[in-house]
């Protein structure tokens, strides 16, 4: 009984400040005209007592696409031309990852908390086994981050979360056009002095809809039918063009 009480007390302390969240949309539909999307993430901090003394409350928002293993390859000059030589497989890398913070990331989040919650971009990637022949496996993960950052797939948005009166917060995250499907895990952390005091998690559903959905499913589930359909369209278009231009000429 005493155990339970102690547990409840801790639990009570840890939720002294709690997130109430709103999303501008909890679904992103990839249609044929899809050209990226902007999600507004906003919310409030619910608390039972007065705002604690000391440094102000900080907010971190992360949005992560589905993780998948990727292969990073490096080019080297062989026989006068540039070819892929070394490769490192990264076990899990989110296809999209954005971190938005209300201050500088290293100021609002301690290293220990970052390790525990895997918040910053390098921590969100998991790479364990590089082949023995490669000594600089780190440069491969760095390259992965650099390439995905250049494509806006990985974003570090420092000072992009607006916090009003330590209670209301909001930020917007731009999803690029080249998105993969899946549940985008969205986390909100409240921190004080670099320590996470509360967190909240939800997910945004990104999926192809309509024609995109239909074609993609068909190509994976019935590839033969899909292939035959592509051929039929091609042959019909070829015949149509030939017939149409014969009409015009006559």
């Amino acid at each position: 009984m005493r155990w339970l009480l102690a547990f409840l007390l801790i639990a009570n302390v840890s939720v002294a400040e709690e997130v109430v969240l709103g999303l501008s949309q909890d679904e992103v539909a990839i249609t044929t005209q899809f050209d990226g999307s902007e999600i507004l993430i906003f919310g409030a901090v619910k608390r039972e007592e007065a705002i604690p003394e000391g440094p102000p409350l900080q907010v971190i928002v992360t949005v992560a696409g589905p993780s998948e293993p990727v292969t990073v390859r490096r080019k080297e000059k062989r026989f006068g031309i540039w070819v892929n030589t070394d490769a490192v497989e990264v076990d899990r890398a989110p296809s999209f990852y954005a971190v938005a913070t209300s201050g500088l990331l290293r100021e609002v989040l301690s290293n220990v908390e970052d390790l525990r919650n895997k918040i910053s971009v390098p921590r969100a990637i998991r790479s364990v086994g590089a082949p023995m022949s490669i000594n600089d496996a780190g440069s491969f993960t760095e390259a992965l981050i650099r390439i995905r950052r250049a494509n806006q797939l990985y974003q570090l948005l420092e000072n992009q979360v607006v916090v009003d009166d330590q209670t209301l917060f909001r930020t917007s995250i731009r999803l690029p056009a080249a998105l993969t499907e899946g549940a985008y895990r969205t986390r909100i952390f409240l921190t004080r002095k670099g320590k996470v005091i509360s967190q909240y998690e939800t997910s945004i559903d990104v999926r192809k809809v309509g024609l995109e959905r239909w074609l993609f499913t068909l190509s994976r589930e019935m590839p033969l039918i899909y292939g035959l359909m592509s051929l039929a369209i091609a042959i019909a278009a070829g015949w149509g063009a030939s017939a149409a231009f014969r009409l015009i000429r006559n």
Partner: protein
Amino acid sequence: MQIYLPIAEVSVNAFLLLGLGGLVGILSGMFGVGGGFLMTPLLFFIGIPPAVAVATEANQIVASSFSGVLAHLRRKTVDLRMGTVLLIGGLVGAALGVVIFNYLKSLGQVDLLVRLCYVVFLGVIGSLMFVESLNAIRKTAKGAPPVKRKHTLIHKLPFKMRFRVSGLYISVIPPLLVGLCVGILAAIMGVGGGFIMVPAMIYLLGMPTKVVVGTSLFQIIFVTGFTTLLHATTNFTVDVVLAVLLLVGGVIGAQIGTQIGVRMKAEQLRILLALMVLAVCGKLALDLLLMPSELYSVRAAEGH
């Protein structure tokens, strides 16, 4: 207007694709080639993943060749018998090509292979065509008679067969081999192989020029159709939205190109085509030779 391609999973400008299709269509109409050898590198340049570009281009060639072969059938300039022999070699070649393609994809060398194939073939064919058409221009200026066809080793091989439309009585081995090579290239490079097939038919098999284009187109339909199916079922890389955008531009461009082509001299056309082929080849070769700005590349891991 941006269009999201469901299989390539990239968003591209629809008008850019229509324009590219139209441009390559004009060129293919002018020169009587499928245009795949130009379109596939162009798709690489605008950021379509190479595997998708190669598979989708095969599908687009089916459309343009079908449109072309209908016109040739009406003019009775298709040697169906020769086409079928070439086709048998071609189908075997296409199957081999997809196996090679998938093996190299697992090694991470598919981009290199595709690019190397392009540099080598575009370079060789571009130079040969350039020299040949320069000579032709010089000869027509002098008024020299055309060279007579010679009997070569090809006429001594066994399994002879009569090809009535082409007026030939030759062994089936050379056409089978030509078909096989073009089939492999079609699968790896995403091209119909017309730019290799046409010279091979004229110079190696000795077919009359008037039946060459139609016959080549006839067998290309089946080889690229087969390639499309293989890519669709083994790699899932045929993007039908991309194919439709390209072929709409392509079939319109081809008709405009044919009109331009009619007004120009054959040698001038061939020289222009040769220069264009060499330009594409040069660009691809520079990409291989110069140090790339990003040494690393990221791909989804295989076998998961």
